[in-house]
């Protein structure tokens, strides 16, 4: 009886050990791809950044032009064959979970930190391939220093490696009407309910103001 008991306990413990080993391997793999987002000053408006960016439609734009409406910001790069397509999909999940009213007020800024490769023309093709060349969505590039400054204000970290790939934070930020970061969703495949609720509230306020 005792030997049976010992065998079963060993079996159970070994099984649990395998699961834990797998989880640890996942965490290790994930760390190689991801930089944890940094802290930010949430009461400092991004609209203080006076730089001009260029959209995939070839239009110059300043962030302050989005004042008065909610904004979703995600940073990515077009050549990414790892997490960026999933990050864009997550942004799409957030956008598509919004009410029709909120969809008409929200803007989505997908900002590339690969200023070398992601020209407005390349981003235009990217937007078409991703079927995101739609109203309210802006794939954006700019000068290196301006992109770096924006990333710093969002708490997004990125670093180019020798193969031309970027290690980076996986972060989706929501800005309120004044350009303050009011919600951050870090990581992939995260639930978007809270972020959607925040956007709906901002959207309703924007509608009332207009």
């Amino acid at each position, binding site marked *: 009886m005792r030997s049976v*008991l010992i065998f079963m306990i060993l079996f159970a413990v070994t099984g649990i050990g395998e699961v834990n080993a797998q989880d640890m*391997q996942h965490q290790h793999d994930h760390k190689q791809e991801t930089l944890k987002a940094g802290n930010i000053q949430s009461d400092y408006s991004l609209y203080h950044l006076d730089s001009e960016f260029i959209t995939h439609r070839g239009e110059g734009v300043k962030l302050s032009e989005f004042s008065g409406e909610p904004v979703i910001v995600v940073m990515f790069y077009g050549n990414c*064959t790892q*997490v960026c397509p*999933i990050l864009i*999909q997550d942004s799409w999940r957030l956008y*598509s979970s919004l009410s029709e009213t909120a969809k008409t007020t929200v803007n989505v800024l997908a900002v590339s930190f690969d200023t070398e490769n992601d020209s407005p023309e390349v981003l235009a093709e990217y937007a078409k*391939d*991703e*079927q995101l060349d739609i109203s309210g969505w802006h794939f954006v590039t700019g000068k290196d220093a301006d992109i770096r400054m924006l990333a710093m204000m969002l708490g997004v970290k990125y670093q180019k490696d020798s193969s031309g790939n970027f290690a980076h934070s996986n972060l989706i930020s929501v800005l309120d009407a004044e350009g303050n970061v009011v919600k951050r969703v870090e990581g992939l495949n995260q639930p978007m309910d809270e972020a959607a609720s925040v956007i709906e509230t901002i959207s309703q306020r924007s509608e009332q103001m207009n």
Partner: protein
Amino acid sequence: MKSYIIAVLFIVSGMSLTLHAFPTDTLTVHVLGTAEDARFEPSVIQVQPGEVIKFEVLAGLHTVTAYHPDNRRPQRIPDDAVPFDSGMLKAGDIWFLKPEVKGVYDYFCLPHERMGHAGRLLVGDVDTLPAYSDGRIPSTVIENLKRETQLILNQ
């Protein structure tokens, strides 16, 4: 002694629950590769409605995502089928899919679609392939699916 018996019963019932949490009668599709070599193996499989397919990731970061407007792609699954997206899967992850509706299901990997990383499920007895829209789907995807499907249908 009584406490030993209770402990054994507790462990056995836990193991039983664990076993029932995972489908046992499944077909497996391996997901592997990290860039140009990213692929589903096999890329085309034939199953019956209600059968469970296990996607097991052996290397890299991948998704199993239906070609469907919900995922910003042309619809290439049957009209009544539920669109799916696994979300990010890492090496060691397992994801299950149970297609209930007869027809052809095309799916892709979000990070590696442009490299032709896509797959097809033939659910039920598929006689003819539907005239799905290609949209802006990379030509490598379409060509791979055609070629692999033909091999299955010729068997």
